[in-house]
């Protein structure tokens, strides 16, 4: 259940959920077999819960976006409507992640599972956020609104999410930084990041859904349902908090957290205190 809460919070906070699911069990001495079908089924339920929470939180946005997409397809062209534009920006941003995710997820998982590397990537995640904030502050141009974001920038923000295949690099962190560099303010960059997260997490969990119903996973069905519900509640609370937070705050506190936690885990891993 602690893993479920961790997933719900860390998936949306820019602190890397994947990194935390490697580092925290190592710190707490939990022995988790990541290839075990029961564990994989549990993880699918957690992701599904997170995606449903995002869908619920942005339900009015999504209903307008889907209606906008449908209108533009029916009409045969995209008009200057913010919902249609946002919908196609999300499509443009999701395509690169889908391709990179499908082709590179497995090899990346295989090569970057050690606590030392994950801790190193968490520190890198901190510096990415610090650099993003520094570049944003140095920018002289006025902020671009989400409705005026170019498709090229949308693809760039979407592609930046692929960095999160490296455990320790946060999907929301990298996409918010990419959004800031594309000219968005913190609020719009976070909104775009969370909207992009919905198809990304949702599709990933739907595609893995057969794992949840595999015979080997029947023994953890109740745990998976409860875990998924818990992840959904914490993810909903997280996105509600973060959308308010980014109205007047920036990424630096998360950067300091990642730097401190990453450095601690790196020292413990190098000194063989954690595996």
């Amino acid at each position, binding site marked *: 259940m602690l893993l479920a809460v961790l997933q719900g919070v860390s998936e949306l906070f820019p602190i890397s959920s994947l990194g935390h699911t490697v580092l925290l069990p190592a710190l707490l001495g939990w022995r988790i077999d990541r290839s075990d079908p029961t564990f994989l089924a549990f993880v699918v339920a957690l992701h599904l819960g997170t995606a449903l929470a995002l869908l619920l939180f942005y339900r009015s946005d999504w209903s307008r976006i889907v209606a906008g997409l449908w209108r*533009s397809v029916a009409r*045969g*062209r995209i008009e200057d409507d913010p919902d249609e534009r946002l919908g196609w920006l999300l*499509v443009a941003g999701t395509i690169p992640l*889908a391709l990179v995710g*499908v082709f590179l997820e497995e090899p990346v998982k295989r090569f970057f599972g050690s606590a030392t590397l994950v801790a190193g990537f968490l520190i890198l995640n901190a510096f990415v956020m610090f650099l993003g904030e520094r570049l944003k502050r140095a920018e002289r141009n006025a902020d671009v609104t989400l409705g005026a974001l170019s498709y090229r920038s949308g693809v760039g923000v979407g592609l930046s999410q692929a960095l999160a295949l490296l455990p320790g690099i946060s999907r929301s962190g990298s996409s918010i930084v990419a959004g800031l560099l594309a000219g968005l303010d913190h609020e719009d960059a976070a909104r775009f990041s969370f909207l992009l997260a919905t198809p990304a997490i949702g599709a990933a969990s739907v*595609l893995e859904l057969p794992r949840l119903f595999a015979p080997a996973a029947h023994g953890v069905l109740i745990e998976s349902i409860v875990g998924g519900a818990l992840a959904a509640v914490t993810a909903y609370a997280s996105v509600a908090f973060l959308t308010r937070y980014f109205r007047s705050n920036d990424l630096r506190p998360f950067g300091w957290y990642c730097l401190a936690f990453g450095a601690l885990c790196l020292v413990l891993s190098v000194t063989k205190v954690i595996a």
Partner: protein
Amino acid sequence: MKILALVVAIVCFALCIGYASGVVQFAAHTPGPHYKHAVVFAVLGVLGLVWMRFQSGASAPTAR
């Protein structure tokens, strides 16, 4: 551009069938059918058709 969109859609649907049947193994890490790859290419194929529709002037407003 309309032809390019059609070509993209056809290639994506062909890859979808190839991955689903296990014939295409490009960048796959285990032998056999790869449904995840197939679904992604099916979606890309549909988007290719949508792109083709955007390129065609079929539904542009006509002058009366």
